[in-house]
């Protein structure tokens, strides 16, 4: 594609600009509403001239325990990711470098998880969680996601490219399997692990359905579930500056990180293929 003209035709540029406006207006409007006094957000002409205020954020923060929700989400995403990194790296190494009986069968089992997303299995999995007595716990929110076939395959791909010589050198130095894995494979796979981590954090920061099903108390609920309840409660009063402030509170961290580390985000999602 390098030979193609770098200039954009005027018509293409106009269409792009119109689409970009459609894409960005929802966000700008939300931000704008969040920083306006409630009585001023109603009139059309006020978009650029009304007073700015942070009062809506304070109201939203007092209305619902967003601090607690934040903490819950952070515990959830870090918990899931650290456990995922352990299970996926171990499994990826076994699939990349070892031969053993039943390998193909196990491989198929992992493949099946990639094909059947956890969302489809919420009903039987809820029954399992209830049987284990884990309803309304942080563990319950994490359990179905700790083994990640997608992560295993992604990391396995990278592990397969590690030169045999490095591994043999480690073996000569007296490194066992786990030591070799830790000192040779993991450092070489760092870019893949970072990409996988980013996609995992995004997924679980944004995940709603399963956490909503297995939690029922505010001290466990993540941000997404908290936001849904908050918006439902506020919506009836049509207090849109409050809803908008709550929305901004929830999206700001990931949106900020995305704006700063755009390249990394886009290439991680590109590698992922599956959210």
């Amino acid at each position, binding site marked *: 594609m390098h030979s193609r003209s770098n200039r954009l035709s005027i018509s293409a540029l106009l269409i792009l600009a119109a689409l970009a406006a459609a894409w960005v207006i929802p966000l700008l409007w939300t931000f704008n509403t969040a920083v306006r006094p409630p009585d001023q957000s109603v009139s*059309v002409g006020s978009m650029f001239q009304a007073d700015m205020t942070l009062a809506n954020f304070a109201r939203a923060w007092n209305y619902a325990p967003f601090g607690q929700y934040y903490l819950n989400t952070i515990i959830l995403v870090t918990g899931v990711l650290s456990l995922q990194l352990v299970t996926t790296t171990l499994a990826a190494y076994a699939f990349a470098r070892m031969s053993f009986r039943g390998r193909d069968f196990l491989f198929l089992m992992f493949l099946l998880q*990639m094909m059947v997303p956890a969302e489809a299995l919420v009903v039987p999995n809820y029954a399992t969680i209830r049987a284990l007595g884990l309803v309304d716990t942080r563990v319950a929110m994490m359990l179905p996601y700790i083994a990640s076939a997608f992560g295993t395959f992604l990391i396995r791909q990278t592990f397969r490219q590690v030169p045999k010589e490095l591994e043999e050198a480690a073996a000569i130095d007296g490194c066992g399997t786990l030591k070799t894995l830790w000192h040779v494979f993991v450092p070489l796979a760092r870019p893949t692990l970072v990409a996988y981590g980013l996609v995992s954090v995004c997924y679980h920061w944004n995940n709603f359905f399963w956490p909503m099903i297995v939690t029922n108390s505010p001290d466990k609920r993540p941000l997404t579930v908290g936001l849904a309840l908050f918006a439902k409660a506020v919506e009836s009063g049509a207090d849109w500056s409050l809803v908008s402030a709550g929305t901004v509170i929830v999206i700001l961290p990931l949106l900020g990180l995305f704006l700063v580390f755009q390249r990394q985000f886009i290439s991680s999602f590109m590698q992922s293929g599956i959210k």
Partner: protein
Amino acid sequence: MTVQPADRKARRRAAPRTGTVSPLRAGPYLMLAPAAILLLAFTIYPILSSAYGSLFERNLSTQQQMIWTGLGNYQALFAAPVFRQVLRNTLVFAAGTIPVSVSLAMFLAVQLNRRFRGSALFRTVFFYPTVIPMMSAATIWLFMYTPQYGVINRMLGTLGLPDINFLGSMETALPAIMVMSIWKDAGYFMIFFLAGLQSLPAELYEAAELDGASPWLQFVRLTFPLLMPTTLFVSTVSAINAFKTVDQLFLMTTGGPNNATNLMLYHLYEQAFAFFDKGIAAAMTVILVAILLILAVFQNQYVDKRVHYH
């Protein structure tokens, strides 16, 4: 995933096919055990237990035990007007969102693949919905669609057009959900097309340029056919997303009005957690798993192989 008996282990081939010899014979199994046990518990077992559970129904006289019904739950589902509507809604949703979001993504990628002033900004603008939670997208669009206060109705108002209750009327509710889903996904699909475009051979375009082919002709004869694997891949992802759509429904419509926006996963949730019909919910789980498996097999067999399995 379990450790094999000692005599079996001893008879195992000494030379592995690939890789190094593990010092521990049990090594690979121990390394796979954590993931494999969780996969068994939360992927394999639930599929099997749903398949089994779908063959039983609640005993209506006692309301307690489950009794054998064979394929009764499936017959009941396909006979139920609500389930048929849910199926129809989901297919309409898929048929409406896939072509629009995929072609929009392709258009954006083709335009933004060139470097020009502002092209990076455009990419950011189209991609950001991917990194925000669907639930935030739902609060944002709930506001957008609101009568009187919402942006869209204000614009209609300035044009002198009447207010539309987008999420409240049967005709507009599902299309409104489809539009916000396209908004959420198109930028994500765009990056796959950008990756696809980057891998196209530059010589072909140089040759086409020499032959005096117009940009449109280049797109029709070269870009579009060469991007076909990506198009198929993205279309299947989009189809899978259609069957997984649920989050925004909780906030925006709760499946209404009158089931107009009730999609597969939301209806499954209702059956299990609002109507407590275990047999029907199990049968719906099986149907959903079957659909997703078919789509995934299609994706793996015929479509661009992103991860090489063997």
